[in-house]
């Protein structure tokens, strides 16, 4: 690499470059949207005709997308620029049983050991296996108070959008970008366009944030929000708990969005307050004053605005091989004639993989596996919903169920509430935390040709194991499938 980067022109500081001075007010931003305010409060400089150099408040790191970045630092003789703003956990590549023993898969073990070594060498906080704070990166960030309103948060993982639930700009990055943030606490990004998605009205009983997200991705398609950063608004969003907001924001990437956020409110502040790394005392009061300014102005301008009626949403299922291929649980798979010509090859390939026919209904369809977990639906509320449904019932004999808490703290809470006993009586077994069957990097692989009802985020070909067929649902629909052995409408 030549070191002549100075030949690239740098423009003037952006107007927002001078907003500082501790005013404890978010700047109005380019067009008055919350996204604009947070973005503009993090601009270090802007390259002429080029990207923005954006300051990152919190960098979350896991074992799979970081080793090459740390190797890059080593090659360049660099340190981590702001080690205190960097948090490491192992989650993608770890077993969900027997975590007290060494990881059996030699290559996985080496990758996890590499993360531990990098943490030590570069002086970083690392929550390794068996650490009480270990868990899925997007679960432990919020539960420990690392995730806060108004922040910029990145991680080498596309579901970093989860943290947008707190009113943060949070997005997934590649390994080269992980190296950028490690070395400079900054990233070069082109400013995305803004979109507001309103969910007006109230959700019906038994319809969850997961159904809202699958409904929205079905309507907008898997690339429908590419190039945009989304703000979720409207009565149904305001009524969501923090965990539900996390589920909604988590799935922003599945319609191509750079990220998605919800303006912080009392629900947010109540969740953050008292968590280990949240501000305390005077610092809390100061933070709260600032956080309360974090909302879109009444006259904010969005590049695109969409409104859905929340009361029209039903429990959702997917039938294809991307999250946009969804439908209400009582719906039918589209007929071939309903698909445009350019998409026909992909549609037919997808249905062939899934073993489904155009025009088919999925309700009543027998299934083989159920997976409750992941950064999408691996939190305590998800386990409560699942447990509440299966209580006093029995797991169907034809179903293998993997129940994987998103973190050790989630698992502890499950035990504290006695949910583990209820699950056990119903024939379910609780596993240890990790990403598990969401991406099947560990041993939790769904066999080829088998149907898995999964609360995770992706139904891509082979995502849950080579040949595995994934049907994405909410935890409630997953519970109904686990008990009945087939796709069942829980309401």
């Amino acid at each position: 690499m030549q070191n002549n980067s100075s030949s690239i022109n740098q423009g003037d500081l952006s107007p927002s470059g001078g907003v500082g001075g501790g005013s404890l007010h978010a700047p109005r931003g380019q067009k008055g949207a919350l996204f604009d305010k947070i973005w503009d409060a993090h601009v270090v400089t802007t390259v002429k005709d080029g990207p923005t150099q954006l300051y990152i408040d919190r960098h979350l790191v896991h074992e799979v997308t970081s080793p090459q970045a740390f190797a890059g630092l080593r090659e360049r003789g660099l340190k981590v620029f702001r080690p205190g703003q960097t948090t490491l956990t192992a989650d993608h590549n770890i077993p969900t049983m027997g975590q007290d023993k060494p990881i059996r898969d030699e290559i996985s073990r080496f990758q996890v050991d590499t993360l531990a070594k990098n943490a030590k060498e570069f002086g970083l906080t690392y929550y390794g296996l068996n650490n009480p704070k270990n868990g899925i990166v997007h679960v432990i960030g919020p539960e420990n108070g690392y995730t806060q309103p108004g922040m910029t948060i990145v991680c080498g993982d596309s579901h970093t959008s989860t943290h947008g639930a707190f009113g943060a700009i949070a997005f997934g990055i590649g390994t080269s970008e992980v190296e950028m943030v490690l070395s400079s606490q900054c990233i070069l990004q082109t400013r995305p366009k803004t979109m507001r998605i309103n969910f007006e009205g109230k959700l019906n009983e038994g319809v969850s944030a997961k159904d809202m997200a699958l409904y929205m991705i079905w309507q907008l398609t898997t690339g429908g929000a590419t190039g945009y950063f989304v703000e979720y608004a409207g009565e149904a969003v305001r009524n969501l708990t923090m965990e539900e907001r996390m589920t909604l924001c988590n799935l922003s990437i599945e319609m191509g969005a750079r990220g998605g956020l919800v303006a912080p409110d009392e629900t947010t502040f109540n969740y953050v307050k008292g968590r280990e790394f949240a501000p305390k005392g005077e610092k809390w009061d100061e933070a709260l004053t600032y956080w309360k300014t974090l909302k879109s102005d009444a006259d904010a301008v969005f590049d695109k605005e969409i409104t859905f009626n929340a009361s029209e949403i039903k429990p959702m299922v997917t039938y294809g091989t991307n999250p946009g291929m969804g439908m209400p649980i009582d719906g039918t798979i589209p007929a071939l004639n309903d698909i445009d010509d350019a998409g026909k090859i992909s549609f037919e390939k997808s249905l062939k993989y899934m073993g489904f026919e155009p025009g088919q209904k999925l309700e009543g369809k027998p299934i083989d596996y159920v997976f409750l977990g992941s950064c999408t639906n691996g939190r305590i509320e998800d386990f409560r919903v699942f447990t509440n449904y299966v209580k006093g019932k029995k797991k169907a004999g034809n179903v293998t169920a993997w129940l994987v808490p998103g973190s050790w703290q989630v698992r502890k809470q499950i035990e504290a509430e006695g949910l583990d006993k209820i699950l056990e009586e119903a024939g379910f077994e609780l596993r240890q935390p990790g990403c598990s069957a969401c991406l099947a990097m560990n041993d939790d692989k769904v066999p080829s040709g088998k149907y898995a009802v999964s609360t995770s985020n992706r139904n891509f070909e082979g995502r849950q194991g080579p040949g595995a067929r994934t049907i994405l649902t909410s935890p409630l629909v997953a519970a109904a499938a686990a008990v009945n052995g087939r796709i069942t409408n829980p309401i």
Partner: protein
Amino acid sequence: MEKFQTITSTYVPLPIENVDTDQIIPARFLKATTREGFGDNLFADWRYNKDGSPKTDFVLNNPTYRGDILVAGKNFGSGSSREHATWAIAGYGFKVVVSSFFADIFRNNALNNGILPVIVSDAFLTELFGSVAKNPKATLTVNLEEQSIRNNENGKTESFEINPYKKECLLKGLDDIDFLLSNKDKIEAYEKNRPFVY
């Protein structure tokens, strides 16, 4: 990063839409700690049978189609942020990916690894698939300096968009870290003068 130069090459057609990064490189191959060796597993589940033998109906296993350019259906690279997808494409030997639409993170990752994502119109893309179906030796010329792509089979040319900064980086073989490190004073100045300190 190598400097990007004008390329004229035959191309490999993949007329599938929404090709996600799990297809480009399945998760079980993400366990490596270096950037090398991913090319062998590019499109692994479409390319190989369970026993490791090649699936004869997949385009990478068809010796008729070779070249430095991959031409794929709409919305290429959706899903996971794994840069391993780009390393697999580069490792296999592709220098350019052409589609009518790319997922954001994939496009950034490609540019950060010297792979040029070229966005063409749906009509141009359809013609590219048509040209190579008629003549597997059909070629494309991609000129980054002029931001043009030419279907040499029918002589049609389109211009494509690229951020001027990224264009300069590719042409000069520079990466973003060089740039960011040269701005340390600005980063420190920002840290001292920001609306709210976390």
